[in-house]
């Protein structure tokens, strides 16, 4: 494999996988601590109609309309889940199951009706992700990394993902303490006057944005793996909040990188004729990491031992 091959064919998907993994891993910890992992599941499915409509309006895979549509769809789904849960007196799981499947089904039908289904946005992208299709035609040598004209030719999905990752990172850093309180003790957070509802809403919006950004890389369903698996693995290993949140982001990015490498480049370098779907490998790795964490996790000292010690 030459450097040119790497820059043109491997660098964009690698970056995309790492950005998606890092963003989702960061947000996943908050979802897990707030016991809202299924909201992440629901949002990643529910943004589909928004994406399709955004695509249909502009006729191209422009980032902003799709992002906007997806965030609206995500908000609508969250609001509808609350309404259905209250009005039909369902438990949260059932309400989520009822709403997100409906949104996803609407998205699938819209995909057919609006004619958005095309080479650009098709079912395969929704179901399997399209990491492999990201290429950088201008990446001929290392000098291109510093050349603005060549950088402008990077796949525009990367720009969207980097933007969302930046926004998410800044938001998390700026509201570190309020988010922490809202994760661990929502009642206390409300009592001391934190806008608990707004934080909740902002979190949902960020997850929706991350879901769209990651959607093009790993597909609608595998976003769930990136949202839940790194966070859950860290939750099994640590009790420290900072480690949990930052570690989740790091593990997510690592999963993205290793998964992508294992799917194609590494077997190719070893001379094995094996090319797997990168998103699938990333998700599988996520599951394996959780399983490993569950087996290897540090056992807490039993209470009796703590008393006699």
């Amino acid at each position, binding site marked *: 494999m030459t450097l040119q091959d790497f820059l043109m064919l491997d660098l964009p998907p690698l970056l995309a996988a790492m950005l998606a993994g890092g963003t989702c891993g960061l947000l996943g910890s908050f979802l897990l601590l707030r016991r809202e992992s299924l909201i992440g599941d629901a949002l990643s499915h529910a943004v589909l109609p928004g994406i399709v409509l955004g695509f249909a309006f502009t006729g191209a895979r422009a980032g902003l309309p799709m992002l906007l549509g997806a965030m609206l769809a995500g908000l609508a789904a969250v609001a509808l889940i609350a309404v259905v849960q209250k009005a039909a007196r369902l438990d949260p*799981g059932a309400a989520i199951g009822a709403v997100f*499947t409906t949104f996803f089904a609407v998205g699938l039908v819209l995909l057919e009706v609006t004619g958005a289904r095309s080479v650009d946005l098709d079912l395969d992208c929704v179901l399997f992700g399209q990491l492999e299709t990201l290429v950088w035609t201008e990446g001929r040598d290392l000098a291109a990394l510093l050349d603005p004209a060549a950088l402008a030719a990077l796949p525009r999905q990367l720009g969207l993902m980097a933007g969302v990752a930046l926004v998410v990172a800044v938001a998390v850093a700026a509201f570190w303490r309020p988010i922490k309180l809202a994760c661990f003790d929502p009642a206390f957070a409300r009592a001391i006057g934190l806008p608990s509802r707004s934080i909740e809403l902002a979190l949902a919006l960020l997850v929706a944005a991350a879901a769209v950004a990651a959607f093009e890389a790993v597909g609608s369903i595998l976003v769930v*793996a990136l949202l839940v698996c790194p966070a*859950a693995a860290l939750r099994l290993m640590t009790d420290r909040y900072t480690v949990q949140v930052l570690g989740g982001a790091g593990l997510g990015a690592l999963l993205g990188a290793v998964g992508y490498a294992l799917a194609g480049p590494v077997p190719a370098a070893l001379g094995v004729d094996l090319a797997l779907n990168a998103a699938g*490998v990333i998700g599988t790795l996520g599951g394996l990491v959780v399983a490993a964490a569950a087996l290897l996790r540090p056992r807490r000292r039993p209470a009796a031992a703590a008393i006699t010690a």
Partner: protein
Amino acid sequence: MIAYNTLVVLSGCALLGVAAGTVGTFALLRGRALVADAVGHAALPGVAVAALIVALVGADPRALPPLLAGAAIAGLLGVLAVQALTRTRRIREDAAIAIVLSAFYAAGVALLSWLQTLPGAAQAGLSKFILGQAAAMRAEDAYIAATVAATCLVLVLLAFQRLRAVAFDMDFARVQGLRTDRTDLLLLALIVLVCVSGLQAVGLILVVALLVLPAATARLLTHRLPRMLALAAGCGALAGAAGAWVSAMRPEVPTGAAVVLLAALLFTLALLFAPERGLLARLWVLLRRRLAADTEHFLRAAWEAQEAAGAGPGTAGDRWAPIGAVAAARGWSAGKAARLAAWLALRGLVARAEGHVHLTPRGATLARRAVRAHRAVEHHLLAAGTADADSADRLADLLEHGLPPEMAARLLPEPSALPASPHALGAGR
């Protein structure tokens, strides 16, 4: 004329809907509905591995039973994985479900992409299991789905008592000596069976909706379990058959999406129009209650305006009260007071003339009852020392409606007496 094959497929999907509605009802009541989501997604690697084995053995790659068996095994493994993760006590069930469904599905995606590179047609058409494609179902596929669905139904009927006990009161069932863990396992097995039999028609992503939506629809319509089961089965059958029909007519629409949208439509209708729990019915009750409270407040204010004008406590006298005074006493806008006056005049409770109202005998009776209830609560609160005159007035405003006459009689023992108001009457309080 519907072709024979289409007819068989429609019937198969209808029966599938019946089974999904029935099993879904128990899953919903037991709080287990989303397990189906994990089972459905987890089936994908099972299907892929089964297809690989079938291809290696050299059997017919289109045969359904081995694929469904693979799906069932993988689905069961998924359920076990959810339980194992939950047992760590650090990952709750919701997160465990999300982990299992995404990781298993991812493994399936990776396997599919590998199968594609193999020679032969091992993976041909496997992706139809993801979103469902009833149009591609052959009659014998429909028979298989129908058989599995029928098995589910029979099992539900056989274990009806146990399932009911576990769905409603786990602890009671345990105290009664039922093996609740076994019943739970049976329920999980039923969920797996339904998901597997629905794979070809609905697809593994959306099969959870077939379990949740009809059951949730039925839950809105009735409180009784047998009726709920029947309604859920009916909704499931309708959505299943109609969805399959839509997809048979327009093959480019994924069947799963069609089935789910029809089930969601039924659910939405129930959510809006259900006789007791529907949003419209509850809005209607709320508005009627609010109107009843406003009516009582108006009548009482009219009575008290007459009292304040010198009729003395307990007697309304034959006076006319200005609507403006009523509005001021209640803090209402003039328009609202006028509208209420018109409504009460229509009901024959007041007479209206020149911006004044006069209580008719029926209106006076109701007004006296309202005043009595209000003052009973006020005096009670004051006697108990829980409130001063002003807050007693406000609390009584909230409590008096729907206070039965017997209760007012307990608070105010003398039947004919109407005590004086503990505070000044009129506006400005």
